[in-house]
């Protein structure tokens, strides 16, 4: 399925394409054999746990680090030989946010605008107003939320063809987060593209068109958000007062992807697709102490869907 998707994309305008992109730091794995393709006008969410290789991928695209093997193109240019031109057209927000503490917000904007040939200084003032940021104070006196706002401003201010954002909404308060989502929507509406990393699936679901899941340096899956939502994979945890002994009431239910019975039968973790109704009714036959629905942890459930081999602690499972 992924294969056909890539073939169909190649006919369109592709803003990011990686082929077998691999990065090792000595013997430590960064990313391995990454084949990725992001099309023009698309918001692509790159999701995975911390240390999975998201930042490595983004830094490879910007020529901050060099691939061990494989190739990557951004906006039709090779990331190595075409880097200067790429960086003219791309806005980047680094994940590890360090900025010139001695500068004021305005001085940073002036400096980066000057490096871009004077592009975007006025727009930066508008963005600062939108995000409710005072550009006057020194950056070292900013809160981490305000630093993040400034980083967003410098990424957006020259209206880049492609935005590469590493964990963009971390440390933004919810109201500003919404404003940031609107900024992303506007970029898409203008036909420009966004490639963003996140470890929060609901956020990516909110703003992205497609999602790539990376785990242990490997791209596990690429899905459209629409398909993902239709699948609605969830994880529910039932806590029983009397242990389940040699029974698995959930196994026969349609839509159940996997069941893990833990804690001597006192806890059952169920990963399911579609309606919860049948599962809840099956659980009701036993004495239920507590039910925990992991809504904020959707990606783990999502990953479970793609993991044919369940981890060792899963005593019973009937994942396909």
């Amino acid at each position: 399925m992924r294969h056909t998707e890539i073939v169909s994309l190649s006919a369109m305008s592709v803003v990011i394409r990686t082929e077998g992109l691999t990065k090792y730091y000595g013997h430590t794995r960064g990313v391995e054999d990454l084949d990725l393709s992001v099309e023009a006008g698309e918001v692509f969410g790159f999701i995975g746990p911390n240390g999975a290789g998201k930042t490595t991928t983004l830094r490879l695209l910007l020529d901050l680090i060099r691939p061990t093997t494989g190739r990557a193109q951004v906006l039709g240019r090779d990331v190595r030989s075409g880097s200067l031109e790429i960086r003219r057209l791309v806005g980047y927000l680094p994940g590890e946010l360090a900025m010139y503490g001695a500068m004021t917000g305005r001085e940073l904007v002036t400096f980066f605008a000057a490096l871009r040939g004077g592009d975007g200084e006025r727009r930066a003032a508008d963005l600062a107003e939108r995000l409710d940021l005072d550009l006057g104070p020194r950056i070292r006196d900013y809160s981490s939320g305000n630093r993040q706002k400034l980083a967003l401003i410098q990424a957006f201010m020259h209206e880049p063809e492609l935005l590469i954002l590493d964990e963009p909404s971390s440390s933004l308060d919810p109201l500003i987060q919404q404003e940031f989502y609107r900024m992303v929507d506007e970029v898409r509406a203008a036909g420009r593209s966004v490639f963003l990393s996140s470890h929060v699936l609901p956020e990516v679901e909110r703003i992205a068109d497609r999602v790539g899941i990376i785990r242990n340096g490997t791209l596990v899956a690429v899905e459209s958000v629409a398909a993902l939502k239709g699948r609605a994979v969830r994880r529910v945890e039932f806590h029983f007062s009397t242990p389940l002994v040699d029974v698995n009431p959930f196994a026969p239910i349609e839509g159940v992807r996997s069941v893990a019975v833990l804690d001597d039968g006192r806890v059952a973790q169920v990963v399911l697709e579609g309606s919860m109704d049948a599962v809840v009714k099956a659980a009701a036959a036993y004495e239920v102490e507590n039910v925990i629905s992991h809504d904020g942890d959707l990606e783990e459930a999502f990953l479970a869907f793609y993991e044919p081999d369940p981890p060792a602690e899963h005593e019973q499972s009937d994942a396909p």
Partner: protein
Amino acid sequence: MLRNVFGKTLWERRTGFVWWVLGMAALALLTVAFWPSLRDQAGLAEFLESFPQGLLALFGIENVEELLTPAGFISSRLYASIGPILLIVFAITVGTAVVVGEEDRGTMDLLLTQPVTRTTVVLQGAAAMTILVAMLAATFLAVLFLTNPAFELELRGSAIVAANVGVALLALLHGALALAIGGLTGNRAITLGITTAIVVFGWFINALAAIVDELQPAQEVSPFHWFLQGTPLARGWDWPANGLMAAVTVAFIALAVWGFNRRDVAT
């Protein structure tokens, strides 16, 4: 000032640099002001000659007779001891900040995702370092020109210029060394460690060679020896020495460009 990497490097130094200029001016002024009392000291030559030559060499005094001329005295104090060391420390500070310091603080990622090449970062940083070191050396120069008549130092104008160009080149060479090691390694601690070790080695090999004859061939590798052998404040321009220091400086900067371009940016 915040128009490019060159301007930014100057901008970052702006407050500290004022203090550096004041400190260097004070050092030069106090050195010169000390000359009349030294000159009038009867029996000083005999007193100094009673010290072991090795001890004197470590204080930048190689020749007592020369020390008791204004050029020799000022040269030994300002150009053969604390003066060049301070200038070198300053140059190394800037040379380190340009690449590896920026990586250490984590700002290099943001800088290099602007449309700026790594070569530009190194070259503009090196240019800013050159300007700053030249301005510090010019502080010595200005003080010597202003005090020359009043204190009857009888220094030749061209010799004053020669000495300051020489000491600036000596400092730049070491600043460029820090830039090169930073460009190659991306590690600030290693950069400062190796650079300091090389400065100390160059300094001692030059000083010790004055008393240990066996060390004299080794002295040839010391940039301090290149600069000091001609005593430019007394004898004027030493073009081969200046050319050698400039060439090594340029080579180090080229090495920094090459090293930084070929590796990953450190985080």
